[in-house]
């Protein structure tokens, strides 16, 4: 009777598990899931992974090109970077700092560095890796430095935190709005549906960026980083909820006619109960897919606003803020590594798109 047991297992597996089984077949989506998890892990352990204080400026190491870690030397395996030495440029007579192969700095694991709070509440100075010894100007410049001599790698790692969390926070607000309004629209239909649909249509036919630019620009200069962060989150979430509402409404309309919902209605279950207990669970996977597809737009919005100087403001560090430094072609020509900040943006958006696509296929193999 193993066959019928398997059948039962299949029947009990429920929508979510079935979706997961189908999802696992999409190789690219699974890889993307790992990339997304990796990025969020980086965000959580950002300070631990950083090699230098992302805010620490030092004019002497302005625009240092990326510096590789030399893994071997004449003594075999011995990871090290070169120290910096100042020398005078014979044309401009300015002091420039260049790597000095004669001075090797050991790269070690779990070194002491700047102080931070792990998970926000455990004060520590340990970092995954870094150099020991050396002068204050020395460091591992994996991805080079910016104009103010700040280590791009460390800033990029720390920026992950804000850029990813702002996307997540915005999508959560969007989701609440979308499920609520889309649900109302799909559940009650009639005049409520008409009104909500028209509102969505109106919002969708407005070019949003100029509008939100206007709102973002009006945020008082006196606001703290945290206040601006929340305001921007709210602004971004207002951009994305219409699509989520559309998905939710569509599912509700389809489900309203399903037998099990009618059965629940006949059994006398209340509207709210039907919605929460019977309908929502049956399209959780659709919602997860829609969220995953909405996230890239949120991340792009934050990046764009900050890039324009209307989003988050320094000293906050986000990908958009890092890219702001790369706005000028003359600067870029001298320090092309500043464009590296674009890599994680593209990578994360790509991963979320693949992930969302895989999830959607898995949630709705026939639609």
């Amino acid at each position, binding site marked *: 009777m193993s066959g019928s047991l398997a059948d039962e297992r299949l029947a009990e597996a429920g929508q979510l598990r079935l979706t997961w089984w189908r999802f696992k077949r999409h190789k690219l989506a699974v890889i993307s899931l790992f990339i997304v998890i990796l990025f969020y892990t980086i965000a959580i352990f950002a300070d631990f992974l950083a090699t230098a204080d992302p805010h620490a400026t030092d004019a002497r190491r302005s625009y240092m090109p990326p510096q590789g870690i030399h893994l071997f030397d004449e003594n075999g395996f011995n990871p090290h970077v070169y120290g910096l030495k100042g020398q005078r440029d014979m044309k401009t007579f300015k002091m420039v700092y260049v790597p000095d192969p004669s001075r090797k700095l050991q790269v070690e694991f779990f070194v002491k560095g700047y102080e931070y709070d792990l998970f926000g509440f455990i004060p520590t100075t340990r970092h995954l890796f870094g150099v020991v010894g050396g002068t204050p100007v020395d460091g591992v410049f994996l991805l080079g430095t910016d104009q103010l001599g700040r280590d791009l790698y460390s800033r990029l790692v720390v920026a992950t935190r804000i850029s990813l969390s702002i996307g997540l926070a915005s999508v959560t607000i969007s989701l609440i709005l979308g499920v609520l309004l889309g649900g109302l629209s799909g559940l009650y239909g009639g005049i409520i549906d008409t009104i909500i649909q*028209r509102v969505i*249509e*109106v919002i*969708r*036919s*407005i*070019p*949003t*960026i*100029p*509008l939100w*630019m*206007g*709102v973002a*620009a*009006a945020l*008082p200069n006196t606001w703290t980083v945290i206040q601006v962060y929340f305001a921007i989150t709210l602004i971004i979430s207002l951009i994305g909820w219409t699509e989520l509402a559309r998905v939710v409404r569509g599912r509700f309309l389809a489900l309203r006619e399903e037998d099990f919902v009618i059965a629940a209605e006949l059994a006398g279950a209340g509207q709210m109960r039907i919605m929460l207990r019977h309908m929502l669970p049956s399209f959780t996977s659709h919602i997860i897919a829609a969220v995953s597809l909405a996230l*890239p737009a949120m991340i*792009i919005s934050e*990046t*764009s606003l900050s*890039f*324009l*100087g*209307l989003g988050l403001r320094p000293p906050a560090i986000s990908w958009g803020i890092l*890219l702001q430094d*790369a*706005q000028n*072609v003359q600067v*870029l*020509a001298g320090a*092309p590594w500043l*464009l590296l900040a*674009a890599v994680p*943006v*593209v*990578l994360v*958006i*790509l991963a979320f*798109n*693949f992930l969302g696509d895989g999830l959607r296929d898995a949630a709705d193999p026939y639609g």
Partner: protein
Amino acid sequence: MLMYIARRLALAVVTCVAISVLTFIIIRLPPGDFVDAYIANLASTGSNITADQAQAMRVEYGLDRPVYIQYTLWISRVVGGDFGVSMMWRRPVTEVIGDRLWLTMIVSLSALFLTWIIALPIGIYSAVRQYSIGDYFFTMVGFIGLAIPNFLLALILMYLGFRYLGLSVGGLFSAEYAQAPWSFAKAWDLFKHIPLPACVLALAGTAHQIRIMRANLLDELRKPYVITARAKGIPERRVIMKYPVRAALNPFASSIAYVFPYLVSGSIIVSLVLGLPTVGPLLLQALVAQDMFLAGTIVLLLGVMTVVGTLISDLLLMWIEPRLRLTGHS
């Protein structure tokens, strides 16, 4: 059909009103009123006005009245074509904006056109040859296109052009035409400069539209009427082009209505990076300087023009979709 047109028109009007309210809110958002900002602006250049003069200005602009009256005053002036004076430039807003609005529209429309002519054939190909190497290739390119924010693409192109070709790829006009009055030569110069920004702007939208066209067409290809058509003995190419492609065109065409606002939005940022003389850079300057009449007017005009564009695309859709034309809904 008339019902449908009436509904679309009503919706367009409502949208314009909504945009005007939002614009008004934006104008009002910065702390203090615009006279405060004006005074601050004057003070920064060293001149001053008296408290009486300030009060006179407040009365003139109705700033001492309730908000909804201020809105009515403002909107009735706007409808009459008076958009106020730019503080930053000390000139009427319309003069400051000048050709920029039209250039914005030209760039956005070119991008829209490009989106259409690229996305349509590729979408059809990808659906008909689903899971072929070409399909995978375009899907991959499409995903990457979606993942690169267009300002980033503009940035990369600028860098590559500067670094390897030694030229500045930005702008919409050659130097000799930038300030010149309109002429045929200037229009031709514009035409030569349009492709690059249009491509940059169109990339993400095209990727999106390819996916929409592919998905729609895949849906349609599965439908029984395709088999009916095949069973008639029509050549396969004609089966596909006449039936499923035709049906998939409708949702594709209606999605253009959402792509257009998106392109207008995108043109703002891309213009900044590429230094295009559209309203984009002006809007940013105005916002940063809190020149709210200028910023508000730009937002309002962009919004209204987008709504008009959307309306036109809706009417086009009605024209190509018999069910919409005959019954008013599809």
